[in-house]
């Protein structure tokens, strides 16, 4: 990919995530989306950068804050919006809602509302992919997304130990927005995430700048290392959540917020930055396309039917 192509592709992904979620903010008061929504507005660069080096058959494992990576990994937008509406055409037939988006054919392994729970599951998938590569010669990789809060759960420490021990093809991505609901990181963690992970000896990255290109380069470097069979890698990407933890509102005035931080991150908005780099004409072209995609997803969701009562009992057992 040339540099201009990269700019365009990262912009398109970030802008699509932003506009999709802004549409949710707009729709939410209608009560059509009866589901908790954990938005990534302000954090789009992470998803765009993390998914850029992944192939369709690579795997991403998500948290409940999963809209951004679902879109960036190539999840079907119509099925995603329909899922948020609880429609039968949704990516999980209306059973999942916003917190458990899934699309196996796009390599999206699903998402859990229980913090940290997907980290070992992602490692298990990586174990299988390591095995698979012995037969196929092709190493698919797993990208495990999680927040800074997840790293406090025991299963995080247990999983990285196991992954290093077994040289699993997994990239751990800690999306550090420095908050767990309203609880700032310094009140939860005795030492930094970097210091805790370093002794395991994995290739590591730490992007503090908010710069989507730096994120992209670091993630690409580490994903390649994982794909080459060097075992797991770890990256921490600092970012900032602009809206409330869950729901469509901003909570700028809430006591846990530091207005200076929010201001700093908003001034560092990568969507606006890349729009400027692309120029008005190119941006307008992409934006028009994005508006169409988002509008189409809403129409699709609105016109789809709700699941029938029988669906209550399907898929309890395989």
């Amino acid at each position: 990919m040339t540099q201009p192509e990269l700019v365009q592709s990262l912009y398109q992904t970030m802008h699509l995530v932003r506009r999709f979620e802004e549409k949710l903010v707009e729709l939410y008061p209608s009560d059509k989306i009866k589901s908790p929504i954990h938005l990534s507005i302000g954090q789009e660069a992470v998803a765009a950068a993390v998914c850029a080096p992944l192939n369709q058959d690579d795997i991403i494992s998500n948290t409940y804050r999963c809209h951004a990576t679902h879109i960036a990994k190539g999840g079907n937008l119509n099925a995603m919006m329909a899922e948020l509406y609880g429609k039968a055409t949704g990516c999980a037939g209306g059973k999942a809602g916003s917190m458990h988006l899934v699309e196996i054919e796009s390599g999206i392994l699903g998402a859990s509302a229980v913090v940290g729970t997907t980290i070992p599951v992602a490692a298990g998938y990586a174990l299988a992919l390591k095995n698979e590569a012995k037969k196929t010669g092709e190493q698919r990789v797993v990208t495990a997304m999680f927040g800074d809060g997840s790293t406090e759960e025991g299963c995080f420490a247990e999983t990285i130990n196991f992954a290093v021990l077994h040289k699993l093809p997994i990239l751990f991505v800690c999306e550090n927005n420095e908050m767990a609901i309203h609880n700032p990181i310094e009140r939860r963690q005795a030492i930094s995430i970097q210091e805790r992970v370093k002794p395991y000896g994995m290739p590591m990255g730490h992007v503090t700048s908010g710069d989507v290109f730096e994120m992209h380069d670091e993630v690409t470097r580490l994903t390649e290392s994982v794909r080459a069979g060097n075992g797991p890698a770890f990256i921490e990407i600092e970012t900032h959540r602009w809206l409330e933890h869950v729901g469509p509102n901003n909570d700028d005035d809430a006591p846990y917020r530091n207005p200076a931080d929010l201001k700093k991150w908003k001034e560092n908005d990568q969507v606006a930055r890349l729009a400027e780099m692309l120029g008005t004409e190119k941006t307008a072209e992409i934006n028009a396309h994005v508006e169409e995609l988002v509008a189409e997803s809403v129409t699709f969701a609105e016109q789809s039917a709700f699941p029938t009562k029988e669906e209550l009992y399907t898929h309890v057992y395989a």
Partner: protein
Amino acid sequence: MSMLSNQRLLRTVDALAEACSQEMARDDSVFLFGLDVDDHKAIQGSTAGLLEKFGPDRIFGTPLSEDAMTGVAVGAAMAGMRPIHVHIRMDFVLLAMNQLINMGAKAHYMYNGQIQVPMVVRCTIGRSWGQGAQHSQALHSMLMHVPGLKVVAPTNAYDAKGLMIAAIRDNNPVIIMEHRLLCNAEAYVPEDLYEVEIGKARIMSQGDDITILGVSHMAIESMRAAKFLKEEGISAEVIDPVSLRPLDMETIGNSVQKTGKLLVVDNGWLNCGLSAEVLASIAEQGLTGPDGQPVQVARMGFADTTCPTVRCLEDHFYPNGRTIAAKAYQMVKAQPTATWLPPEGVQPEIQEFKGPF
């Protein structure tokens, strides 16, 4: 419910906060901790004011580490403190099961009484607005299985305060299971400190034709059912078990001997659950109704499936006042296929709940 004076209308969450505050003032070994207990939302308001009053040594948020934090509660309790550990969803108690069951529940017995574990675990069952598979589970039956644990499920502000106080003073691990839809329900609550006895059921409404035992939010739905049934000339006795382990089988047994019929409506799955326990106990005791015949029994609860997110499926997941009334009607009329269903009723706590949590 009570003869105590100075009653005010309080929300359940305010009653819980008051109970904790008064107990913390009375006994400085009591402390409260858990994720988000000290933020501005204060667990729906149920921990509001505690930080200002008691400071961060006695009320504090924790890292996201439920298993270890439960162990910390167990250890502090062993040393004579009285921790209250709060989970905003009962689903997260699953991460704490090892410490709770292998340590908390067993220490007193295993160490032959040398150690006590006077701790309280508060947790909320979620429902509606797409809580879905992992934010709606009611796991009381799993916990009731284990000797050494006590489990209570208040359905109103009066019981919430009295049980909270009783749980804090109890020398065993007590799990208080709250229901998200009942957080804001109001009831008259005395200002004074009082205990609601753990192990005592409450008869919510008297009746002769059938006993309906409703657990947690299903106690509310069972009261709705009783109202529907009354219009059909059926008098239902509704019992709120209040305490699930120990379970007041005496009150339930006395009632079914009067009515001859028992419908258990659990706020949980049926398989190996509270409902099975109650019916087994009725059968083991060989209880009979006023006609000398064995008690006729039935049970309802969560559909035997995972809780879906979308509302139209979720509506079929839970029993409600209408479906409970319809079942009771069939039993009382001895018409197992009767299709009578009451008209659509109001369920404000469900209809008005807009989440997200």
